[in-house]
């Protein structure tokens, strides 16, 4: 078989299997186009956020249903105790003048 016939055969093969016909073996960069995207697999490494207790609370609050959150209850109790001991949070400064006077005291 002649060289030309072989080339024609390869050309037809490339057309059928949708490959790039490149008899000169030029660097066409098709290697890059053949690569699969790695992004979705890499981005799924860490566990995504699912439904939390807070979401449950938020969905049932408009319906008037109350939920019991033990951690939140404990926190509020601790705050009450701190306030009784005079260790509560300071009053929020609403204006610039208020915050300035607070600084001067020190």
């Amino acid at each position, binding site marked *: 078989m002649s060289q030309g016939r072989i080339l024609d055969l390869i050309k037809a093969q490339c057309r059928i299997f949708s490959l790039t016909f490149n008899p000169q073996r030029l660097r*066409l960069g098709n290697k890059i186009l053949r*690569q699969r995207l*790695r992004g979705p697999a890499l*981005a799924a490494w*860490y*566990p*995504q956020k699912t439904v939390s207790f807070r979401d449950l609370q938020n969905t049932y609050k408009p319906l008037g249903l109350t939920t019991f959150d033990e951690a939140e209850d404990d926190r509020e109790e601790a705050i009450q105790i701190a306030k009784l001991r005079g260790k509560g949070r300071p009053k929020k400064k609403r204006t610039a003048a208020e915050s300035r006077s607070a600084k001067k005291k020190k």
Partner: protein
Amino acid sequence: MSKAAASMFRPKKLDLSGFVNTRLIRDHNKRNAFEQMEPERQALRYLIRNTTLPQRVRAQAQLQLSQMHVYTRPTQIKNRCVASGTARSVFRDFRLNRVRTEPLMVPSD
């Protein structure tokens, strides 16, 4: 492309559950950034590798790729332990580090 802060890749609300760490969140942001920009990166890489294109086009593509934000680079991504955030000796199959996999490796009687 202008210089941009890393905060542009940070979601408004944290979309992770389980162990969370500053460095873990940063890595997660990098992963998301890479996923978002991967087609563009691959397109530029194709232009650079194609030797039949004019030299000017290829040089411009090289410049554009190098000027993309660091967070969009795959080499910035580091596999971290899902349970403790450790970056060292993390088993890819478990996504856990050496210490966290040890309890799983106890032979069952």
